[in-house]
């Protein structure tokens, strides 16, 4: 089992979710983050005080999948999130030791999906 974390552009979320659905990956957790990356942010101005604006809004996706779904998930994310501009984000993949569905108590492979 793998755990995928992806940081993407906020406005690509709908696209990525749609692509994931296509690949039959339904379960996913999303949260707001801000990120500093290669993308140059827009410096903001407050009463003539400039803020570097290095931290940009991003969306963080977390997806636990069985091993055979890893590639599908990555493809879906890349497919939905790539615009070709800096700031498109990253995908990180972790080994997931155990997974448990709270409602049923199922674990491992069965609990993922």
């Amino acid at each position, binding site marked *: 089992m793998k755990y995928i974390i992806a940081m993407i*552009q906020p*406005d690509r979320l*709908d*696209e990525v979710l749609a692509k994931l659905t296509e690949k039959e990956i339904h379960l996913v957790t999303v949260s707001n983050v801000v990120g500093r990356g290669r993308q140059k942010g827009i*410096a903001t*101005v407050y009463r003539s005080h400039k803020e570097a604006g290095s*931290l940009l809004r991003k969306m963080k996706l977390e997806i636990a999948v069985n091993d055979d779904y890893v590639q599908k998930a990555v493809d879906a994310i890349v497919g939905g999130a790539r615009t070709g501009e800096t700031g498109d984000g990253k995908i990180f993949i972790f080994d997931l030791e155990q997974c448990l569905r709270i409602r049923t108590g199922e674990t491992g492979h069965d609990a993922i999906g």
Partner: protein
Amino acid sequence: MSNIFSGGAAAGRLSLAMKTAGLLIAVLTGVNAWADGAALAGAAVLTAPTPALPAPMISAGDTAWMMLATALVMLMTPGLAFFYGGLVRKKNILSILMQCFVCLCLVSVLWVICGYSLAFGPDTGHVIGTLDWAWLKNVGVGPGPYAKTIPHRLFVLYQMMFAVITPGLIIGAFAERIRFSAFCAFTVLWSLIVYCPVAHWLWGAGGFMGTQGGFGAVDFAGGAVVHINAGMAALAAVIMTGRRQGFPESLSPPHNLPLATLGAGILWFGWYGFNAGSALAANGLAVNAFMATHLAGAVAGITWCVLDWLKFGKPTTLGMITGAVAGLASVTPASGFVDIDGAFWIGIGAGVICWFSVTAFKARYQYDDSLDAFGVHGIGGIWGMIAVGFWATRAVNPDGVEGLFSSGQATQLWAQFKAVGITMAYSFGASLLIFKIVDFILPLRVNEHDERVGLDLTQHREAGYTVID
């Protein structure tokens, strides 16, 4: 499905615009011919004072009321900003607030410079005011020709707030995608080229649609001048700016409904100044307008709730406040002419008609009137103006008009129809033209990247809220 609202094919848009412009010219030519004939009677109004009556006196009570009404109408512009602002996505909230405040600042100054004179100044040819009152020359704090018991400049201020909020209403149509500089240019041009003439036609002494030597159409507080006018410009805006990215599948829900509700509350509060203030005095007529306004807003709010309840199983907060605004907009032209029966039916009608326009019509034609500026204000205004022709009665306003139900005659109804038709045509055509011109010089729409990032950052270098703190 293909339709005229997609904003995709520039060529098609152009030809449409041209046709409209043609129509417009035709209409105006005819109108001018007609107006010239009626010039004598109309022009007399301003020039000939009524010497027999005792000299008009400023009334402290009326002045107090009209200062209040002015302040209330001013507050509606921030109110509108919050109403609209709560409905967009977080990344565009400031762009809405900014645009509303720009209307407040920019149009106020324009109004003093020449807007008031164009709209209400001494008539020329029944179509527009002269510049005799530009920069408030000859406009003092003594009684003025439009309201005899309050300082003339108070009337200027009161009308200023109407001129301010009208372009503000249009913001709902191109929200989340307009370039700020183009917006500013449009607002200036539109105020002068569309708002001032239309205000003159209905309200200016000698205007060709009004009661003093015109069609005899009436518009108590701005059903045509404000709501239809803004609504049709909104339709033009929708066509010219096209749809937002992701419309309609992945539109985000309103980012802050409590903010929108605050805006609606302020709007409702301010609307008393808008409608009851249009009596221009603290008298029974103002109270009648107050009552009609409140009742129509309340009834329309309930109506929208009921329709939502029937269709979606639950009434929504956004539906309730949208309904209330639709009711308030619809009763605007009628509030000084109808009794509570009229107000009641106008409210019901506003709820039903605007609900359908937003639900069925917009869904059918898939145009992206982002915040339903056309669907609520345009449609509501049309309904209200027509409704005057049905429910108006001299029983509540001896100086008013008689509608179909009280007089059995359709004269007034016909006058209202004409005023509605011409306002719609002119506002739509001229707005389209202005958008066209502005777009030629300053692209109307932000580029794709800026739209994605949001207008707050790209147009104003600010963020509405901090994320981490």
